[in-house]
């Protein structure tokens, strides 16, 4: 196994993306994502990579769409305000079945907000953000190791389903430094089936299109997309369960908040409180399968997020009125300590 290195989250992700064969980066710097383009740009000359600092995120996201159409691995990284600008391209990439990887280092909004950690973009990332009926797979890392591991996974999933994949990072995961084992280098795959690169021995030209001719065709086009999303929903729900088997209270938390809750669970267990956690790893598709074993059994769910209550709605849908769901959130870049969460758990126990 490769050695562990002590590395910042964003830099570990950038290195892992390069090792995953991501040869193109387009972006516009914005805190707290800027170390990703910075690292990539530094490595670009020696590694033969293409790095372009676009004039806006609108261009950067469309450049990513362009490179995806050629069958090559490309990405961008941004924060909430930049992701909002890229949403038109997100909708187009999903509709056009273009595989790409996009990192959103969430910061507290709305508007420019602060530059610290937050989970305020949950709805935007998981419910579309752009226009129309589309979805993107969203992976939410909770450690530098997972952040790095998600680079190859995100490219593989993007190509498997030919759909954009988003990494839901945040100001805390992005800037945090931890030990990490970086993924092995993979060689770029051969010519992609969908690449718009002329016939060159193929019997046909590839078209990248988002157009149907008339509502009948347009509906069929949409139904095909929906069939793809249904397949993703069926196959790609990912989550981790911690001490859930005997738990009276099951915490639901992702990313930074899941880390805080690990310590809160240890405090609670030490005091004999039976607390566990479901940690969504994909926040789209939301891991509703995880809840099936626990509903209707008198367990309480406690959702905690760094926002005003966004994922909590997906938890309510997953338990479908068969369990009580409580919520606690902090805003503006504030992150609760493990003791603060533990105190909330004690209140719930009463």
């Amino acid at each position, binding site marked *: 196994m490769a050695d562990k290195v002590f590395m910042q989250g964003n830099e570990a992700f950038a290195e892992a993306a390069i090792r995953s064969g991501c040869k193109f980066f387009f972006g516009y710097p914005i805190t707290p994502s800027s170390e990703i383009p910075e690292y990539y740009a530094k490595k670009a000359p020696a590694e033969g990579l293409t790095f372009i600092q676009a004039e806006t995120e609108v261009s950067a996201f469309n450049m990513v769409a362009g490179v995806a159409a050629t069958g090559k691995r490309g990405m961008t990284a941004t924060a909430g305000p930049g992701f909002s600008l890229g949403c038109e391209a997100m909708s187009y990439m999903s509709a056009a079945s273009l595989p790409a990887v996009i990192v959103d280092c969430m910061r507290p909004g709305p508007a420019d907000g602060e530059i610290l950690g937050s989970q305020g973009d949950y709805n935007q990332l998981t419910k579309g953000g752009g226009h129309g009926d589309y979805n993107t797979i969203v992976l939410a890392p909770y450690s530098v190791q997972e952040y790095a591991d998600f680079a190859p996974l995100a490219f593989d999933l993007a190509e498997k389903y030919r759909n954009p994949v988003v990494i839901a990072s945040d100001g805390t995961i992005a*800037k*945090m*430094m931890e*030990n990490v084992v970086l993924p092995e280098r993979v060689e770029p795959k051969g010519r992609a089936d969908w690449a718009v690169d002329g016939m060159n021995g193929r019997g046909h030209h590839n078209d990248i299109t988002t157009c149907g001719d008339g509502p009948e065709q347009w509906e069929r086009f949409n139904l095909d997309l929906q069939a793809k999303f249904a397949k993703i929903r069926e196959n790609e729900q990912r989550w981790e369960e911690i001490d859930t088997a005997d738990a009276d209270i099951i915490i639901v938390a992702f990313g*930074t908040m899941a*880390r805080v809750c690990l310590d809160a669970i240890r405090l609670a267990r030490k005091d004999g409180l039976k607390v566990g956690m479901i940690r969504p790893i994909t926040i789209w598709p939301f891991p509703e399968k995880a809840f099936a074993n626990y509903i209707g059994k008198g367990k309480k769910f406690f959702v905690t997020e760094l926002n005003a209550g966004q994922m909590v709605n997906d938890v309510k849908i997953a338990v479908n009125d068969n369990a009580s769901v409580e919520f606690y959130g902090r805003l503006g870049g504030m992150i609760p*300590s*493990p*003791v603060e969460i533990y105190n909330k758990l004690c209140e719930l126990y009463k």
Partner: protein
Amino acid sequence: MKSELIFSGIGGQGTILMGKMACTAASKKGYNVTLSPAYGQEKRGGRASCQVVISEEIGSMIISEADTILVMDEKSLIDYEGKVKPGGTLIINSSMIDKKADRTDIKVVEIPFTEIATKVATAKSANMVALGAVVKTLDIITLDDAREVIKMKMKPALVDANIKALEAGYDYVK
């Protein structure tokens, strides 16, 4: 074994560098380390702080109460005195802070980092005096571990002076 530390000061004082060096030392010994930095947009003059967790298991990067807290400026003292675990240590940079700590349930160590650094090396090594003082309060990292990190991370010409500063800080804490 688990150590939770907070380093807080003003940008330019090397606060986050100290945290990184403590992490590097612990990481070399096989511990999980997490450094969570917080700094403003200013290059110099704004708050620069980091929370460091050294542990055998993965856990929260946000600390409820720390075993040792180092404060390099007065604002940091005001903000972080309350976060020291009862029985823990608060290390105060008395070169820059006149205010006294209020708590009596913790060990308070006042050290004139700049004056000590100037005596054994130069004022620039004040943060290594501070690191030495922090290391003294820890079981996980020894003075030798910290010396090794200085040798690994610093230019050869700076190693001797910074090790002297580190040792001076270490020896100052009784």
